[in-house]
């Protein structure tokens, strides 16, 4: 099993996109888009392009990207069992949480069930929700109660309480997001103990980035009070533990927060003055770490997780290029949207 996963991850590694690959996708003629995508193991995306390279349905690009990710996760999860399988399963549940949010918003806006069902991400074998049943709930309250009787009860229960008290969609989304990532950490903990630092480092980069970006966004974009900001962050035991997050949430400016970060982070974030910049730099750091884990002789589940992190980032890049081409943007604008650091090489 271990050899199988190791080989699979190594083979998949060859599909990752280098910067020059993305650059060539920007430049290739329309008729060669499908071939380029197939060469990089993206048949799901290539299927959306006709012989003239035009996309039939721009909205389904998201769905096709996720279908591709789920396909690859399905292959990687096959030989896994126990904690590793449970972890990768909940990793894919992000997409189903997105479906939950779509369903909730559809009930708030009184959207027709058929219309919202068409917008949901097809989860295939990873799907744990009965979307038909949920889409036919009469209102948000009924939907939340149905969700609470399902596999995501622990995540939804708190969100329902928060929503019932405030009727604020922001509270609902924030509670779902926090609940999801805390469940992910819970599932990651046994693996951190058994697999070791390689896996922990990937989780640390992921959760620390989420917490820092959320903190900055809630504090300085939404102007929430420090106590509420701290409450909305994911309970973490990585580089930014709870005590550190409390201190950071109490600061009054983005610069002050960045100045209080660990020294190594300050070096990474030097020159950054806005929140998207923080996200991009931290994502680069996470990608570099994932790349290091993927290349090294690390435990299989850590390499598989690293691959999935990198693959998702790649697919976001591919999506940016395809969207840019579809909208007729210039090459430089598309490159700008990619935000990929030049030093990253597979």
């Amino acid at each position, binding site marked *: 099993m271990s050899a199988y996963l190791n080989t699979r991850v190594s083979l998949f590694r060859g599909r990752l996109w280098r910067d020059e690959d993305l650059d060539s996708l920007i430049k290739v003629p329309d008729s060669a888009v499908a071939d380029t995508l197939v060469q990089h193991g993206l048949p799901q995306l290539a299927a959306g392009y006709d012989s003239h390279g035009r996309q039939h349905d721009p909205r389904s690009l998201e769905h096709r990207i996720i279908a591709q990710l789920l396909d690859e996760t399905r292959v990687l999860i096959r030989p896994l069992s126990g904690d590793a399988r449970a972890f990768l399963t909940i990793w894919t549940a992000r997409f189903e949480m997105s479906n939950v949010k779509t369903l909730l918003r559809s009930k708030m806006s009184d959207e*027709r*069930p*058929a219309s919202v069902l068409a917008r949901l991400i097809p989860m295939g074998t990873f799907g744990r929700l009965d979307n*038909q*049943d949920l889409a*036919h709930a*009469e209102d948000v309250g*009924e939907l939340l109660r149905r969700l609470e009787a399902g596999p995501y009860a622990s995540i939804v*229960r*708190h969100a329902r*309480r*928060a929503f*019932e*008290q*405030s009727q*604020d969609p922001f*509270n609902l989304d*924030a*509670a779902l997001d926090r609940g999801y990532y805390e469940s992910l950490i819970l599932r990651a903990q046994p693996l951190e103990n058994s697999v070791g630092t390689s896996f922990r480092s990937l989780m640390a980069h992921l959760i620390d980035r989420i917490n820092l970006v959320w903190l900055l966004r809630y504090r300085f974009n939404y102007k*929430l*009070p*420090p*106590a*509420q900001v*701290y*409450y*909305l962050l994911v*309970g973490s035991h990585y580089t930014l533990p*709870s005590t550190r997050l*409390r201190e950071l*949430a*109490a600061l009054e400016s983005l610069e002050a927060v960045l100045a209080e970060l660990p020294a190594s982070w300050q070096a990474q974030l030097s020159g950054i003055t806005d929140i998207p910049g923080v996200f991009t730099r931290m994502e680069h750091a996470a990608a570099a770490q994932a790349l290091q884990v993927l290349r090294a002789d690390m435990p299989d589940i850590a390499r598989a997780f690293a691959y999935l992190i990198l693959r998702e980032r790649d697919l976001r890049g591919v999506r940016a290029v395809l969207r840019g081409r579809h909208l007729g943007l210039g090459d430089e604008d598309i490159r700008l949207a990619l935000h990929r650091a030049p030093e990253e090489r597979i």
Partner: protein
Amino acid sequence: MLGAEPLLRIQLVMLASEAQDAALTLARFGIFNPADCTLEALAESPASAYREAWLEAQARLTKLLQQCGDTGPLILPEAAEAPALADLQELNHWLQDAWVSCLAGHENQVEINDALNHLDALEDTLARLERLNVDIAHLLRLNSLLAFNIGSLPATELRRVTEALSMTAHLVTRFDQVGEQVYTVIAGPRARHDEVRGLLAQAGWRELPIPDELRTHPQAARTWLEAERARLSIQSDRATQTLDTLRKQFDPRLHEARLRVALARPLAEAALAGVRGKGGLAALSGWIPRIQLDALRTSLDARFNGRYWLDQREPLSSETAEVPSLMRYPGWLKPFVPMVKSYGVPRYGEFDPALPFALVYLLLFGAMFGDVGHGGVILLLAIALSRRVGRMAWVGVAAGAASMVFGVLYGSIFGNEDIIQPLWLSPMHDPVRVLKMAVGFGVGFIAFTLLVNARNQWVAGRVGQALFDSTGIAGLVFYLGAAGWLASLIGVTEFAQPASWLFGLGLAGVGAYKWFEAKAGLGERMLVTAMETLEAGISLFSNTLSFLRVAAFSLNHVALALAVFALANGLDAAGHGITLVLGNIVIIVLEGGIVAIQVLRLMYYEGFSRFFSGDGIEFVPLSLSPERYKA
């Protein structure tokens, strides 16, 4: 019995206004599997609105039936017609109104229950606050420098809320817990109280409303609580009465709604596969057994008097993967079918392994658990449980009988080999022969699976794979050569020379095919060819050795029985009897169960995985019964 029934692809074009009746007729016909319509000229989807309305109506009807209870058995009259779209939409609106009325009543009842629970909590809280000796009125006065909140939040959030509130100089004191809710007092400077409102809302904080009545003498507070409870009790009775009235009011129409939703189901289900149309025309497409074509025409003529057009054709080779498989089995074989289907459904045109599965399963079970006594007990148990387990009891009866037959061949009754002489051999006295027989059977079984796989590949048009792959004819030649050569080596046969030729020929064929199939650079191609050929050889070898378990379990059976006898012989008369009975129960339950699973494993992994893709589509006829679709 060894493959799916030949099907025809049909396209039924009719007036769009009669599409629901056409679908109903096909559902009543009971042997039509809908599929996507491929008529390019008919680009519209006239039934999608119908399906949407039906889904909504179905969902609301289910919820209403859960609320109001079943309306009795549903009998669909022969002459009943399916509702048109407008009728269905009107029904849907009525169901929506009915559900909203029911929901309001239900929510009212939930609110009353919540209020009653809240009163309970309030009563407990009052008792606790009394014990704390706190003047609540003083605590909650508005002109104090400190602001207080008394209420509850989920226990899981307490630590985080306490940490967050400490950032705004607020203290949290827990004083009670009911279920997963902790009751707390939050105190902090009134000047900073606004900062915590958002946080408390986010944390699911529920303020404990402390009415004026509760802020007085405890005796007065209790009197108020009792009055409140009586008021809620009256409200609850009224809510129940309202719901009962609604149920009585809805019941007749609800039954009619069930009838109409059931009659609308066929078109709604067919729409899922794809009903196409244009203008006033609609087309249903799907699969029917070839021999049923004339019967279908007769049904359609009787209903539509020629107002339809029916086209039929044979399945195309390019669409084999999409053709459903309709299998028919004799009654005695049916109990074994679920065990095959739990692995997968045969593709259309693929060999159906149900018959060989049943025969080999019984053969192996008998060989591994051969005992007249134990087999007899299994047989009798299966007969005794036949009412409870239904048709599956037949598997137990057949397995018990097979075990008895092998018991006679082995000369074993409840593990005792001294009562009857073996007709064939005693595993314990001739273990090497048993091992050889098991491996020999394994070679035959694997050769059979390779042959079947070659046949399946050939039928599917994959000639190269059928002839040269490691699971095709070349693999079979390679395998038989290797098996013959090894058999000659240990002196079982004397065909070393021709066997080695066969082995070389098969190996060359498999290697060449792998080389041809590997689309990669030279180095990777060589590596892939070498690895995959080696893997095929190792896999066939290890799969063959897997059959040693047949011999191992037949020996194990005797060994277990000997162990029971040895234990029993060391005890007095009563202990002897009890040990024999208990020991035999253990053998039947434990060993019998393990053997049943091991045989299944052999069939799945050494058999099915070699030739049976199991990714076929089950033939699911359009039907009036919802259970068919769930299946």
